[in-house]
């Protein structure tokens, strides 16, 4: 017959052992500590040293919290080790599945001439900037070599609708091949919607293609950011949005914004425009240091501090909206919060370690070149081919995936061995971003104290944690963002 342990067994233990964790100053009064799986806790600054030195009698409540998040364990407890191992394995499970996102740049032609364009678009009539069927076939051979059970093919440009015949070819060919492969195959077209026709929508509906579009804010801002003949980008977007939603379904069209210097004083107006057009979220993005953004000096037109003000103002407004009953998400924060509050990894390429380049997303360019990421091909359009992994016409899957260009970038930028990152409490939420750091610092690691990427993300991580600590309702809203279905 089973017996309970003796009473002493259940007595509260006071001696504990430390488990591995990292810490960083959250502000002058508090530290944030993170365990190996990225779970965090905020403690008053004077308590950190005594906890580590074990010279401080911890309250039963604090012991329970630190144990439940595996910062400490009672002597010989095995469960915390198993739990941490399980959470780490869960967080990294995406790596084993390998590349999911395959980007087909079907043309570099575009009807817009945005000064910040990150892919250095060509004019509408230059046919030499179109992908050929031979390249598409070889790219599809490559796509189906990925072991990932879920494959997403995203069409980008230029404006991919200017080479819609190639979009159709790739979709039909991919679906034909998938009859044998049986993957979870999805398609996305990244488009401004300006050239969308009913025939195109019929095709998209027939093949469950979703549309990812661009909206920079109210009409005057959007049209100033996105010039095209007729200066009617916003009108065309709105018309296209209406048609696409009617044909494909309300939630089958998303939008991304780009922040220019003109956007900075208008955070609330931009969010209001997203609300007016029925979107349930916005991605407050920075301008990337690639393509025309560099050539036209747009990238230099505002600094990280100013962008952070914009982001914080926007986020504050979005939180207000949620508190008033309007469900609306800031998507970058939602990605970070998912990493902070769950064991899942949303697989956002910029915030992955090892970097997502090549192993989470890969790009087949209109000229047959294969790039490690969308940013890599943007860099190539500026004449820097560092992350060109090979040619789809000349090189095999193995030659491309095992190329030094890719493996060196992944290995050298690995944050758990990068200076400063390896000790950083926010490392579980951050990413390696070798392409960004190479673009700015000519070094895939770069000196992190000088990195705007590090500064921006560190500020965001701290801001989100402080917001959760200062207001229970905000914390509940954030938990909702992190656990979206």
């Amino acid at each position, binding site marked *: 017959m089973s017996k309970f342990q003796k009473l002493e067994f259940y007595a509260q233990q006071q001696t504990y052992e430390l488990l591995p964790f990292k810490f960083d100053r959250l502000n002058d009064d508090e530290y944030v500590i993170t365990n190996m799986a990225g779970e965090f806790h905020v403690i008053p600054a004077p308590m950190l040293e005594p906890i580590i030195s074990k010279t401080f009698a911890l309250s039963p409540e604090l012991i329970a919290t630190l144990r439940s998040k595996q910062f400490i364990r009672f002597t010989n407890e095995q469960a915390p080790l198993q739990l941490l191992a399980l959470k780490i394995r869960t967080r990294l499970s995406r790596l*084993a599945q390998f590349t999911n996102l395959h980007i087909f740049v079907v043309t570099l032609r575009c009807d817009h001439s945005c000064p910040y364009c990150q892919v250095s678009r060509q004019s509408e009539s230059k046919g030499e900037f179109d992908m050929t069927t031979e390249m598409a076939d070889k790219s599809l051979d490559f796509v189906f070599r990925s072991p990932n059970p879920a494959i997403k093919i995203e069409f980008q440009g230029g404006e991919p609708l200017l080479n819609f015949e190639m979009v159709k070819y790739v979709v039909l060919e991919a679906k034909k091949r998938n009859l044998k492969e049986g993957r979870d195959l999805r398609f996305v077209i990244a488009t401004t919607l300006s050239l969308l026709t009913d025939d195109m929508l019929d095709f998209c509906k027939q093949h469950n293609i979703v549309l990812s579009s661009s909206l920079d804010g109210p009409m005057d801002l959007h049209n100033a950011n996105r010039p095209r003949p007729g200066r009617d980008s916003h009108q065309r977007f709105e018309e296209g949005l209406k048609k696409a939603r009617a044909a494909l379904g309300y939630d089958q069209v998303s939008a991304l914004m780009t922040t220019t210097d003109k956007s900075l004083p208008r955070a609330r107006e931009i969010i209001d425009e997203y609300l007016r057009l029925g979107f349930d979220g916005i991605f407050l993005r920075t301008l990337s240091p690639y393509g025309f953004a560099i050539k036209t000096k747009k990238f230099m037109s505002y600094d990280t501090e100013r962008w952070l003000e914009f982001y914080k103002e926007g986020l504050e407004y979005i939180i207000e909206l949620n508190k008033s009953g309007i469900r609306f998400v800031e998507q970058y924060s939602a990605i970070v919060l998912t990493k902070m509050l769950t064991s899942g990894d949303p697989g956002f390429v910029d915030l992955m370690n090892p970097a997502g380049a090549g192993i989470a997303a890969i790009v087949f360019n209109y000229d047959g070149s294969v790039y490690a990421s969308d940013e890599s091909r943007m860099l190539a359009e500026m004449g820097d081919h560092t992350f060109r992994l090979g040619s789809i016409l000349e090189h095999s899957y193995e030659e491309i995936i095992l190329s030094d260009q890719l493996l060196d970038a992944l290995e050298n930028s690995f944050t758990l061995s990068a200076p400063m990152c390896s000790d950083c409490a926010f490392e579980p939420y951050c990413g390696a971003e070798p392409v960004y750091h190479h673009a700015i610092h000519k070094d895939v690691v770069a000196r992190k104290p000088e990195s705007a990427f590090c500064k921006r993300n560190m500020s965001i991580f701290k801001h989100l944690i402080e917001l959760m600590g200062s207001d229970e309702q905000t914390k509940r809203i954030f938990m909702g963002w992190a656990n979206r279905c």
Partner: protein
Amino acid sequence: MALSDTLVFDERLYDAQVLQKAAYRSINSLTVDITSTGGQFICALSSNIGVDEPSFLTAVQEFKKDVLDYQLRHRLNVETQPIKNLILGLAFSKTGLTSE
């Protein structure tokens, strides 16, 4: 003109790597020359070009705090390294990605 300051740390209390890490973290405001003499680490701090006096004083203060933080991290790492390896071993031994 570059601003400067000198800080002295007892070798019995601080690890050289700790000072190096704190110096690295300050790299956008100041540079640090670290030398060792008579059981002490001497850290000669110089401001970067374009850093004004208030910013330099703040950076020096941050450097001091960082030294303390990194020393504490060092202690924590030394104590928890074996168990960290054990946890990573547990995590990666069950991925199904390696053959026997």
